[in-house]
């Protein structure tokens, strides 16, 4: 047994597709003294890579995964380990046909060639499918099969060739040593390796390894069943590994993939079968491999009937039998996305887990970029391991969501679909009040936030709001949202904003510290509200948020509920080493109620003796005020474009605050309004951008229309890139658009959603000069402008008011007009209402 090096720059644990890709890319970025460990043998150490089906369907509704997959396909192709086979996603039901039309739009968005096929066309490509049960199929010619083990070998070899890598297989990690929150060494059964970086890329074992350093990687091993059926002469005659397109039988959650003379049949339809990372067998004790567990036949029987129904003759070929059957382990996370980036608990300890074969090399690239430059070329905030709230990191939550999410693998998942399990675990202090108003709750940062109130149903008639005629457009939506919005614009609304993430910064160096991580000037008088982008080192959006200067040495940062973990990590990571500024997370200490609308000032004046006049309490300022015995912070700002305040109160007085405002507001017609108004209708009418939708690391403030007239003197993260961006014409411009005609050829009016591709009036796909696709980043009703609104980036030549475009949605196209090519919203563009 050879010993491991005593020192390394980075130790990568896990030699599956992910770990190998990371070492390859790190070496390419100039890293040396890398060590790659695996407790199994090479080239197949026994993890999930070894039993993967290795096929790639590139079309995904989400941008991150689509980009990671496309980049991975490019890398596999370049390594010469990719076979393009084409793939079909088959519909047996009308609902699935509709979903396939939605996939067509996503294919167009990301520029992937695809087509919808009739059953007859399906039969031409895969003659053994019984097309009498098929309604149609989504055909992606670029679907491919890759040799992920060979790809891993090539990636490793690149790092070896660069003289950058030591490989130690059959090496077990016994401990991860840390010192004052930083990882310092990896202890193995072949020796101890001192290092500054450790990357945990060991798939289903990742939680166990990370726990050695006290970090949490929230995933659970889960079973995916597959069988191999053969020999089948029809397939043998092709004399190739794979000659027929891969078939995904979407409505049964199954796939059929030729494997030489056999057909591999896999399933995501069976009951979720979750395992504990500590209970995975060792390599020696496993029958096949640690991640290929004994097949549980009963779970698979119903799927076998489905498969026989789709390919009756082929799978029933005389002499063909089940040659191989496994319960393969893969990693499931609470939200289905990968777990990438530095762990929030331990500096220098990075996670690259819950990654599919289709994303492996792309993840290798972004991990190497992130570790080297602190920024990634593909924005992966949705995969950032820091994204979870503490309750979402518990085993309880992971198991609940993995259980629920498993069968969504091939499911038709509505973009606004809410989880059902492990809900109502973070409740606002006024939860009993909102519940008595029959709130419909959506989850935000783990909190339960009212999206609309059924108690407001009467407003629908009062304001004459029309329902949406198509079920899909209506799902997870209500005309009540529109009515609440109109009531707010008309009278006033109270909005439960408890889900806000709130941090406080204190210390003599607070101003200097914050100035170093924000674009806006933080050296403003106490009482000022400062909106600011937070940039990545290369000038893209890391976050955008508001800061209130409470005192000369004290600031309050208010950011989105879903941004809690990532923003907290970012601000914590940048704290001054000299201790001149401290950061505390006070999210669970403060609740917020929004009060907005023309009547907001009257209501406020009735609950506080503070001066709430425009002169005494101008827009953009914050004041402490006493509200019926509550010491509250009133913040005069608006994300919905109306006069009013965000009112912060201690959590234990939140219900009281709500009651006081409600009592005072009722005579003035106040309504409770939900997140539908706050996050969508009010926001979109004002053209306000949202982190994660309009804003991410791939776009800069100039493109987003959020650059300031002046640049502060202080240095800050991303400043150089920001200065450069300001000098050039933006490659894309964020625009507000309206849908001009909703009528569809198929009948009902349709309301395009986010993700839909934006096209020229000639129907051509739009990309900006940097090759970034143009699509709808947010969409929703604009009740006060009377139009359905879209936000999206457009190339400069299209980013003109009055420009006509098309949006593709569910297989049809709808005319679109650009209404604003700047930060100005379509409603009250001069902000007269909120500054009144």
């Amino acid at each position: 047994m050879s010993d491991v090096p005593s020192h390394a720059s980075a130790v990568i644990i896990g030699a599956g597709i992910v770990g190998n890709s990371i070492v390859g890319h790190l070496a390419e970025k100039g890293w040396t003294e890398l060590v790659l460990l695996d407790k199994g043998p090479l080239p197949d150490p026994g993890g999930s890579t070894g039993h993967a089906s290795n096929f790639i369907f590139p079309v995904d509704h989400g941008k991150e995964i689509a980009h990671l997959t496309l980049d991975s396909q490019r890398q596999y192709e370049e390594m010469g380990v990719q076979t393009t086979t084409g793939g079909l996603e088959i519909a047996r039901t009308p609902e699935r046909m509709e979903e396939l039309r939605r996939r067509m739009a996503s294919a167009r968005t990301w520029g992937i060639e695809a087509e919808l096929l009739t059953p007859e066309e399906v039969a031409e490509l895969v003659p053994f499918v019984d097309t009498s049960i098929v309604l149609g199929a989504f055909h992606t010619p670029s679907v491919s099969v890759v040799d992920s083990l060979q790809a891993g070998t090539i990636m490793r070899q690149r790092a070896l060739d660069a003289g950058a890598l030591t490989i130690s297989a059959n090496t077990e990690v016994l401990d991860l040593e840390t010192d004052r929150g930083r990882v310092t060494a990896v202890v193995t059964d072949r020796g101890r390796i001192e290092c500054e970086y450790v990357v945990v890329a060991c798939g289903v074992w990742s939680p166990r390894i990370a726990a050695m350093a006290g970090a949490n990687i929230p995933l659970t091993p889960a079973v995916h069943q597959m069988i191999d059926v053969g020999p089948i002469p029809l397939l043998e005659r092709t004399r190739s590994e794979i000659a027929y397109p891969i078939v995904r039988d979407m409505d049964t959650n199954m796939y059929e993939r030729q494997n030489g003379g056999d057909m591999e049949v896999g399933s995501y339809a069976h009951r979720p079968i979750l395992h504990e990372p500590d209970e995975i067998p060792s390599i020696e004790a496993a029958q096949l491999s640690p991640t290929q567990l004994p097949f549980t036949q009963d779970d698979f029987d119903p799927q076998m009937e489905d498969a026989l129904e789709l390919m009756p003759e082929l799978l029933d070929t005389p002499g063909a039998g089940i040659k191989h059957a496994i319960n393969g382990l893969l990693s499931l996370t609470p939200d289905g996305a990968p777990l990438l980036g530095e762990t929030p608990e331990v500096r220098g300890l990075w996670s690259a887990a819950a990654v599919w074969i289709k994303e492996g090399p792309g993840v290798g690239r972004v991990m190497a970029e992130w570790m080297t430059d602190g920024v990634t070329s593909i924005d992966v905030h949705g995969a950032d391991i820091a994204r979870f709230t503490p309750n979402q990191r518990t085993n309880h939550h992971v198991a609940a969501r993995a259980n629920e999410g498993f069968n969504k693998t091939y499911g038709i998942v509505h973009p606004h679909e809410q989880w059902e399990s492990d809900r109502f675990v973070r409740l606002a202090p006024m939860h009993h009040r909102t519940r008595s108003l029959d709130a419909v709750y959506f989850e935000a940062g783990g909190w339960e936030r009212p999206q609309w109130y059924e108690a407001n149903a009467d407003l629908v008639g009062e304001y004459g709001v029309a329902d949406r005629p198509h079920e899909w457009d209506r799902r997870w939506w209500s005309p009540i949202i529109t009515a609440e919005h109109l009531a707010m614009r008309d009278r006033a609304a109270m909005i439960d904003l408890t889900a806000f993430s709130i941090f406080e910064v204190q210390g003599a160096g607070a101003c200097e510290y914050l100035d170093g991580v924000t674009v806006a000037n933080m050296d403003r008088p106490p009482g000022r509200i400062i909106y600011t982008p937070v940039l990545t080192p290369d000038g893209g959006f890391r976050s955008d948020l508001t800061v209130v200067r409470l005192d000369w040495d004290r600031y309050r940062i208010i950011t989105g509920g879903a941004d809690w973990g990532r923003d907290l990590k970012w601000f914590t990571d940048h704290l001054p080493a000299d201790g001149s500024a401290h950061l505390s997370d006070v999210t669970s200490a403060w609740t917020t109620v929004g009060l907005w609308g023309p009547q907001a000032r009257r209501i406020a004046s009735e609950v506080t003796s503070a001066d709430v006049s425009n002169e005494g309490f101008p827009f953009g300022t914050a004041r402490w005020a006493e509200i019926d015995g509550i010491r509250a912070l009133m913040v005069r700002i608006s994300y919905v474009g109306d006069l009013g305040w965000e009112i912060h109160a201690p959590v234990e007085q939140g219900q009281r605050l709500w009651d006081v405002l409600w009592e005072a507001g009722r005579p003035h017609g106040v309504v409770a309004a939900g997140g539908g108004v706050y996050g969508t209708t009010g926001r979109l009418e004002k053209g306000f951008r949202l982190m994660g939708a309009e804003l991410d690391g791939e776009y800069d403030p100039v493109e987003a229309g959020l650059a300031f007239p002046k640049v502060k003197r202080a240095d800050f993260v991303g400043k150089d890139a920001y200065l450069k961006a300001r000098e050039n014409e933006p490659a894309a411009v964020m625009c507000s658009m309206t849908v001009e005609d909703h009528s569809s050829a198929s009948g009902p009016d349709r309301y395009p959603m986010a993700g839909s591709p934006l096209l020229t009036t000639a129907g051509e796909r739009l990309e900006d000069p940097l090759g970034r696709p143009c699509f709808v980043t947010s969409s929703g009703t604009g009740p006060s402008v009377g139009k359905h609104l879209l936000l999206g980036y457009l190339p400069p030549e299209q980013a003109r008011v009055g420009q006509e475009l098309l949006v593709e949605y569910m297989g049809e196209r709808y005319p679109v007009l650009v209404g604003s090519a700047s930060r100005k919203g379509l409603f009250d563009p001069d902000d007269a209402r909120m500054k009144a």
Partner: protein
Amino acid sequence: MRLLVCVKRVPAPGAKITLTPDGSEVDTTHLGFTVSPHEECAVEEAVRLVAAHGGSSTVLTLGPLAAEDQLRNAIAMGIDHGTLLPMEGPEWDARAVAGAIVDAVRVLEEDDGRFDLMLFGNESADAGNHQVAVRVAHALGRPVVDGVKGIEVTDGEVALRRAVADGHTVHHLPLPAVAAVKEGLNLPRYPAMRGRLMAKKATIRHVEPRHREGGLRRLRLRAPEQQRTETTVLGTGAAAAPAVADILEEVGLL
């Protein structure tokens, strides 16, 4: 003709067999279950014989309720009927097992007629007792041959090829007879998907076995001491050929 195949449910271990902490059993937490390769061949042979000569086949096992899985796998391969002699608790010794099988065969034959040929695996994968087939044959007064790697049935007689170190011996037995077969008898088929679905619905007959003390009782299982040999690497690829030729000379082969 009527055939009976006897199988035993055993875990399918990996490169290392893990024991329960008290050493009483193999730790099957992570293991699937199967029958020995010998018994897979016995099942295959029964299916082929029925296809060639008509009649029916029955698969029988003594084991826990979960052993129905092994019976259904055999049915998926083409066996017609399954019989379980249900038992729980520690393994029975070979004498007790043989006694229970003999009882069950008498019951089955009483109801449906004599088994012309009874097939066993030469020995089970786990216990390796090498005696159940012979005990059953003796108790029923039927001739038996072990180590069988070839079966040919002609009118009223079966020709068995027994594998021996330097070839085969051929034995002709009158029916009814018993054979303990070895892997290599045939290449077993894989269960068809359709067969599997049919097997799922098949009725498994239960015949309650009577346990009588066999005389051999397990105290514990243990793994042999691992002798860790230090492997000498002779070289890489073609360059290692002379070193290996030296070893051939050393052991007197060259």
